[in-house]
């Protein structure tokens, strides 16, 4: 049951981001959310952080999105949940997923945009499952012009 809930949460978080339903996405996040996008650079031989936000920061950032100039078209996250761990002592559950993100241009052509892994910790409190931490680790490091929403 728990495993099923964890999978559903991961999938729903991606569906909400695909639809750019930011309120829907934020509703899936724990008040203690910690969201990080990381990548490793073989050029400088370092782990890097490309985005780090708590819930308030994420909320503000997503609220500003409509005012920005952004790449046209849409992103589509294809996710497979590979592992769901047993609950830890603090009640959170770890999950490891793989993601492929495709970009579909306005004229209808699609191409692979990015690949990576989600390292999630999910809080299960009061019968609800919420995203507490997510580290989206990118294998892809050339993101073209870049983007304004979390991967």
């Amino acid at each position, binding site marked *: 049951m728990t495993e099923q809930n964890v999978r559903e949460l991961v999938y729903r978080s991606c569906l909400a981001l695909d639809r750019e339903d930011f309120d829907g996405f934020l509703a899936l996040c724990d008040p203690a959310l910690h969201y990080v*996008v990381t990548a490793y650079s073989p050029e400088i031989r*370092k782990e*890097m952080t490309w985005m*780090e936000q708590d819930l308030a*920061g994420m909320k503000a*950032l997503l609220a*500003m999105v409509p005012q920005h100039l952004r790449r046209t078209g849409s992103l589509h996250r294809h996710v497979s949940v590979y592992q769901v761990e047993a609950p830890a002592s603090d009640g959170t559950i770890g999950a490891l997923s793989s993601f492929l993100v495709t970009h579909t241009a306005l004229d209808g052509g699609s191409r692979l945009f990015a690949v990576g892994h989600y390292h999630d910790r999910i809080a299960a409190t009061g019968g609800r499952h919420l995203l507490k931490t997510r580290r989206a680790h990118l294998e892809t490091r050339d993101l073209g012009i*870049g983007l304004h929403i979390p991967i």
Partner: protein
Amino acid sequence: MTARNAQAWANPPRVPPSHFVSGWVYRDPAIYDAEQAKIFRRVWRFAAHESEMPEAGAYRTFVHACEPMMVVRETGDRFAGFIDRAGPAGARLLPGPAGQCRSTRGLRPCRTAAKWGFVFVTLDPEAPDLDSYLGDALDIFRDVFEGREFSYEVFHFHQAIVEANWKAWQETILDLYHEFMHVVLRRTQMPATAMTARSLRQHRNGHVSIGGLRALYGNYQAYRVRSEGEALPGLTPDDARFTPLFPDTTIIARGTVLRVDTVTPLGPHRTLVESRGLGIKGESPADRRMRIRHHNDYWGPLGRNVPEDAYAAEACERAFGRGAALFQTIARDEDGRGQDDCGLRAFYAEWSRRLGRPACAPTNADAISRGEQEGKP
């Protein structure tokens, strides 16, 4: 007068020749080749920061003037650059973008020099030395780098291939007027000081420096105000200043953090943009995290500023790349302040000087592509 017909559209803008640029500069293959020979093979180009080569033998590769290049720390503060091609087939010797290099035997060396930890190379044996090439262009960074007991360190690197001519990217840096495009700048930069407080200086060799900008970070709802204690030495936390070095490198400071960009043409219509973020070597994890956050607020692939510039460069390519747009206007004059286009004009003046053809009519000089021009409306 409203819209224009083909003939009116083909007329050059009614401004002085220094104040507009022909669309041919972005798409003529012969101009692209001339840029490689007369600009990129002659200038000093930022290769890597010393912190990327922490010990003797550490190297970093890059591409410059169509050549595979590398720079290596030999001993102490001595760096050496080479063309990374060896053997009869001219294969790259080094396996990755960075690592330890056992030997540079057989590689062709090139002139190499460093300033403030930034390592530069040139393929031109006749070029003036780095200090004369830079002149006083980096003076606005003197307080940041000189006489400091610590050194800087690269914590961020990313690259992207932008579908545009390299100059369209560089223009996003030289052009202050386009701050209207960025909601972060409309909120944090435009109300922070009077337009007259800004200063755009043109230096020898086409370099430009821009100072007097400030930022009210609290005006953008997702940002935190930067505190005095977070500022880099020599800067206030709300300072913003930058130096586009001709042709392809820019050093940018935003109070608490630094960024260095390089732009490398891959063809008339494709450009590699490399971007580094720098903090203080040995700073506490909390300070580093703060600096990374500040860097990512504006910069990096998920920042709120840089992706919009790339969008703009690609939008220009769509109009210039196949010849729909014929000219661009760089005619704003605010006496070296405000949103003056003098940075763009300095860039294109140097470009014209080095190529020996005016940017406003680059194909007329020696009839390059005249055959194609004849078919233009």
